[in-house]
């Protein structure tokens, strides 16, 4: 087996350049700010989807609780923004000025202790990474050390997503309840609502997205990525070779959680609110379908999957709300039955060979033999 010494092989490099060109140049030039903001919203899910590629596609761990981490990241960011928006001058009319409006409506008279540190941006940014990371570490350690995996893990993460939603909705006075945290205004005095701010936030998000793509690609290419694949295919053999399977799984799960949390934080910034409807079972499982549509083995595929499925959702549910659920349901079934490798699989099986043939017929040089185990079909 040839270990790939380059960061991207040729087809990945083409994918990288194409994605970068579209996200950095073509979309900002061709779309108005409203549409660009929608793309920014779709891209927040791409963070989750990239995490799922690592965790599910490579590690074989299906988490149905990514919404929890998305929500944790989003709520951390939203708490900071909400505190800044509820300064004493802004909330003069409340019975207790200086606390968020929903607390005042729910007869909470003082800022709860766990809200206090969110006055600091540094703490908030650390919390966006650390809170979901630690939470994933606890869940992962408890589950994987006891060799719980597969379907059991999926069910338990799903239950955690359910618990989280009920908790957020139930504790209205501390979390904003079902409405979530709305009316987020400024970041360190910089208004996040006007058009030019939205464009800047979009670019910040795309840069972060490419950073995450880079990290994911790096993990994929190192020995770690290969062990993840080996573990997915033959867990026992990896264990007998002396690797600690549980630790690798915990690592993949934590990375996925952190990526999801970054996506959630960007969601709060770009969309301007955060609510429990992005935390529960339904959004969590929809995040899995973005990855599945893009191709569970493909990092770029995950980004495309998130954009396309969400684009379809926005346009279909606007004009034919009834068709959308049928379409989404059919998409789940089709992706599982007919295209287990998603769009990237279709690309690799049908488009790529033609391009290769075209190129090969122009210059009949021998092709280089980059291959990567990871690009094979998932066998489960």
């Amino acid at each position, binding site marked *: 087996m040839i270990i790939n010494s380059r960061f991207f092989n040729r087809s990945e490099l083409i994918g990288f350049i194409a994605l970068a060109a579209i996200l950095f140049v073509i979309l900002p030039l061709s779309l108005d700010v409203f549409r660009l903001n929608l793309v920014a919203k779709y891209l927040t899910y791409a963070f989750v989807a990239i995490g799922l590629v690592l965790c599910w596609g490579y590690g074989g761990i299906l988490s149905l609780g990514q919404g929890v981490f998305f929500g944790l990241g989003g709520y951390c960011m939203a708490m900071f923004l909400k505190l800044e928006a509820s300064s004493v001058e802004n909330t003069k009319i409340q019975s207790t000025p200086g606390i968020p409006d929903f607390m005042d409506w729910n007869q909470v008279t003082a800022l709860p202790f766990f809200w206090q540190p969110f006055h600091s941006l540094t703490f908030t940014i650390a919390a966006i990474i650390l809170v979901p990371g630690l939470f994933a570490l606890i869940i992962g350690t408890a589950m994987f050390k006891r060799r719980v995996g597969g379907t*059991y893990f999926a069910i338990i993460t799903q*239950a955690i997503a359910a618990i989280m939603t009920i908790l957020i909705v139930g504790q209205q006075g501390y979390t904003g309840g079902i409405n979530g945290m709305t009316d987020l205004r400024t970041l360190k005095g910089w208004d996040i609502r006007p058009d030019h701010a939205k464009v800047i936030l979009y670019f910040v998000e795309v840069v972060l997205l490419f950073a995450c793509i880079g990290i994911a690609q790096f993990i994929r290419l190192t020995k770690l990525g290969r062990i993840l694949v080996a573990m997915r295919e033959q867990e026992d053999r990896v264990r007998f070779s002396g690797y600690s399977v549980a630790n690798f799984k915990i690592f993949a799960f934590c990375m996925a959680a952190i990526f999801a949390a970054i996506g959630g934080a960007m969601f709060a910034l770009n969309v301007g609110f955060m609510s429990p409807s992005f935390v529960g079972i339904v959004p969590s499982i929809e995040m899995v379908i973005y990855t599945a549509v893009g191709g569970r083995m493909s990092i770029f595929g995950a980004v495309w999957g998130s954009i396309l499925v969400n684009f379809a959702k926005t346009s279909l549910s606007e004009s034919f709300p009834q068709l959308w659920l049928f379409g989404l349901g059919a998409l*789940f079934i089709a992706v599982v039955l007919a295209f287990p490798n998603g769009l990237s699989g279709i690309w690799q099986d049908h488009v790529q060979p033609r391009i290769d043939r075209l190129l090969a017929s122009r210059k009949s040089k021998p092709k280089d033999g980059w291959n990567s185990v990871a690009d094979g079909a998932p066998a489960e």
Partner: protein
Amino acid sequence: MFGEYSIGDLGSIFVMQGFAGLILFSVYVLMALGLAIIFGQMGVINMAHGEFMILGAYVTWMTSNLFQSFLPSLFSGYFFLAMMLAFLASGALGMLVEWVLIRHLYKRPLDTLLATWGLSLMLQQAYRSIFGPREVGVELPQWMLGSLKVTDSIEVPINGVFVMGLTVLITIVVAYVLYKSRWGRQVRAVVQNRIMAGAVGINTEKVDRFTFGLGCGIAGIAGSAFTMIGSTGPTSGQLYIVDTFLVVVFGGAASLLGTIASAFSISQTQSTLEFFMSGSMAKVLTLLAVVGILMLRPQGLFALKVRK
């Protein structure tokens, strides 16, 4: 939190809440039985189980409407026919789904989860298009209304007692079918060793299809019973699916007794807690406890010792 109640009051509270818990227990058991058969015996995660249950509920609703318009004299007995129709409808749909979808995915359990989730979305939308988005309620026959007075402070509703009786009956039937009948032996043989079962002449594909159909049919009966105590909407099934999966996993997937024990403990904990705190916190605490215990004891309460 117990301060303001006397001992007698507390006793009545526990009995009444315990009874409310028993009704929840019945719904959990009926749903979890079907799921335990499908998940425990076949290893298939059926996320559309709630929708099979709701199909049973809609069938019951339609039957009651038919009786009301055409056979008002027999209305008091419609429920028994409705239950059978619900079983047949859900079971038939289950067998169809197994044939079209599930049988291709036996080796990929995580993918069945996604595929059946897709199925559940489509079924939900189908119910919404056919029966409308609003919840529908079934009119109960006269003899099911009212309540039995046990003592001065304790009253139990008759429909609750009926649903519980039904649950016990169905549990016994399922246990008999699985553990005593020839067909049940075949099912267990296929579960324990599919290749050997095939080698001794059991048609494993047929067994799979009937097992899946039976599980879905029981879900249909669950839906039928569900109409006795609540109203039915297109998304009612989804509300119960996670709880039911936890019940099955908590009980130990392949154990019928475990399923019942875990349904009992989860429903009782939840309804007792509900009296002392808000419903949402009661649910959060119950689910957290279950998840916590599962992290310590992942094999569930009653684990079968099987060689993998």
